[in-house]
């Protein structure tokens, strides 16, 4: 008996979403097959990888990264430019950790100023992430969306608690792209997408942030949520779940014990930087094969590795 391939054809397709402007603009999505299943149909745009930088000098980053970047960390615009020139990521994620009322509590005006400087310094597409305080993020995103009108940035992200502010200002008033963030649950994701849609945000201006977990820290929930979302989007042609998925891997992987424990804490474990990179690339790879169309990493070596993986899988 000859081999009969089990062909997988899906009626649905992941939306195409473009970030940034000009030569360096990127598009994600556009596939009608499971991730990297080039043998089944249209693979669309290869997944994209971005690098995370922060608005203030982060106090909890691995020392190796601090040494790597040195002084440019003190100025987000210089930092962004440095990353663009030296590592050429697909996009840069400016993470406003300094906005947190539990931390540096930078004012919205200060943050907007930083955002403007960063956007002026680079031509790479920009993603702005908040400080996890829904109220502050709402104000921050609205102001940044306005200040960077025309840059076609991605706002990461609108949540159930602030989607009206973020969606209305970000996508409707200032035509930016907005990620809808839910916490690792297909129904919550669907519900927020529908709410955003009812607000008037078009599906093609949205991506999904389905939550993030590091390998070993409940990653199975994230992986299975992605599986279910992707299968619903493709298999059932569920238009409320066809937005591309972005996963800020670095927000979690550098905070887990495997990456944080010092060499003094765990002498057998070896370099914390090495552990951090391995944790980051393992988690990013697992996200990509589960359905992420874009991932955010922190270490330049992770960027390089994940790019190689994507190229290898699509060769």
């Amino acid at each position: 008996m000859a081999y009969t391939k089990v062909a997988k054809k899906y009626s649905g397709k992941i939306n195409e979403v473009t970030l940034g402007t000009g030569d360096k603009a990127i598009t994600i999505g556009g596939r009608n097959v499971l991730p990297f299943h080039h043998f089944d149909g249209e693979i669309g745009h290869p997944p994209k990888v971005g690098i995370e930088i922060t608005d203030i000098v982060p106090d909890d980053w691995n020392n190796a990264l601090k040494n790597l970047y040195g002084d440019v960390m003190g100025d987000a615009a210089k930092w962004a430019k440095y990353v663009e020139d030296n590592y050429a990521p697909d996009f840069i994620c400016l993470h406003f950790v300094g906005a947190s009322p539990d931390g540096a509590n930078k004012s919205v005006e200060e943050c907007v100023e930083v955002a403007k400087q960063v956007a002026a310094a680079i031509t790479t597409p920009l993603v702005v992430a908040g400080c996890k305080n829904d109220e502050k993020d709402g104000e921050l995103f609205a102001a940044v969306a306005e200040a960077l009108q025309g840059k076609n940035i991605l706002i990461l992200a609108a949540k159930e608690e602030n989607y009206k502010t973020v969606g209305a200002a970000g996508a409707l008033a200032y035509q930016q792209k907005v990620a809808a963030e839910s916490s690792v649950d297909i129904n919550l994701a669907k519900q927020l997408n529908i709410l955003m849609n009812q607000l008037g945000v078009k599906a093609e201006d949205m991506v999904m942030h389905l939550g993030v977990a590091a390998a070993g820290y409940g990653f199975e929930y994230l992986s299975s949520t992605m599986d279910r979302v992707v299968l619903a989007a493709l298999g059932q042609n569920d238009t409320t779940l066809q937005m591309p998925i972005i996963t800020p891997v670095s927000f979690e992987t550098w905070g887990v014990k495997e990456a944080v424990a010092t060499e003094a804490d765990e002498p057998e474990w070896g370099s914390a930087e090495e552990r951090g990179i391995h944790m980051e690339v393992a988690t990013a790879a697992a996200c990509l094969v589960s359905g992420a169309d874009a991932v955010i990493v922190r270490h330049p070596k992770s960027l390089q590795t994940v790019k190689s993986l994507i190229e290898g899988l699509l060769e």
Partner: protein
Amino acid sequence: MALTGLDIFKLTPRKNCKECGFPTCMAFAMKVASGAVEIEKCPHISDEAKAKLSEATAPPMRTIKVGTGDYEKALGGETVLFRHEKTFVNRNLFAVQFADQMTDDEVSGKIANLKKVDYERIGEQMHVEAVAVKYTGNKERYLDVIKQLKDLNKVFILVCDDAAVAAEAVALVKETKPVLVGANAGNLDEMVKLAKDNGVVLGLSADTVEDLYALAEKAQGLDYKELVLNTTGENIAKTFEKTIEVRRTALEGKDRTFGYPSIVFVNDLAKDNAYLQTALAATFILKYGSIIVLDDIEYANALPLFALRQNIFTDPQKPMRVEPKVYEFANPDAESPVLLTVDFALTYFVVSGEIERAKVPAYLAVPDAGGLSVLTSWAAGKLGASVIRDMIKNSGLEEKLTRKRLVLPGKVAVLKGEVEEELPGWEIIVGPEEAMQIPKFLRELN
């Protein structure tokens, strides 16, 4: 293909003798069809009928046992392509590869690493389960390396397509039920004979998915079904395609020719790039690698890979739980606060992560709350004042602490009064509702 009750009824003697415990053969057949009863309950069933039935009800993918005794591992036996559809059953094995051209230093270095990376994570002992030994032309050295590895008690994966050398290698370790990855279109007959004679699991290799299929069909034709399929291809994309096609042909296509575990040599694909090797290993943990071969193991790659495997092979119906006990952070002393959470692994990870981030000395008391989240366990009556009292009383914390402060999760603030009654002498504090507020809360707590 599952048989219906009627199909099974036709295999029974149809005498309604009741010896199986059921009033009629038909009733018995219906029970068998639903999987509630074994066909063996019928004393009159013929061997032929039994074979037919077991063939029909066999899972689409065989479970292959490798190794022996305490080191025996099961591979394959999967029934779904996505874990949420049911669960993944047998976690993949990791192997570290040795070869005949390696120097003594290289061999002993890898052996040392295999011994060093052996640790516990949430009730599971983490270590590499297998060693692959690759033959590249030096037979004496090859056999010598195999001998050096025998004491490790790992599952042997002999990578050798020279049947004569393979025979000598198998002779050294055949009692350990090794895997011999060496059969191809050119040597299948010899290799199947060798495998059959020695009870060895045989690994099949071919360039394309079609060739691999033809090879598996041939091996089955030689009546050998202790097989593993080497799905490694010429590059990453081909390997991914092959590995996926093999698994889904077996599970969705119900074609048992591909119903065997896979082996993926990510070490060959990564070409000495350790980070890429980790990324590839993660890829094939999720996407159907049954044995994943690595160049080497160190804590840096072991920690994420074992952790990821532990997650992915968790049964979705039985959430992962952490051991109920008191966990310590940043060397707490007699004055440090005691935080309380539940034994649902996800909750524990989030809470413990935030306490670590706070860098404030603290205890975290985790009672047996049924492996549920804070609100669910409270609603289910598994996280109440008495549970908390028993946990604290049995923990030894009362004797240890001079200042007794217990921080309840904000979501169960309602328990404060009851817990105060149950734990006289303790100051009961309501903590934040969300874990991310813990660092600030702890820093301001005094």
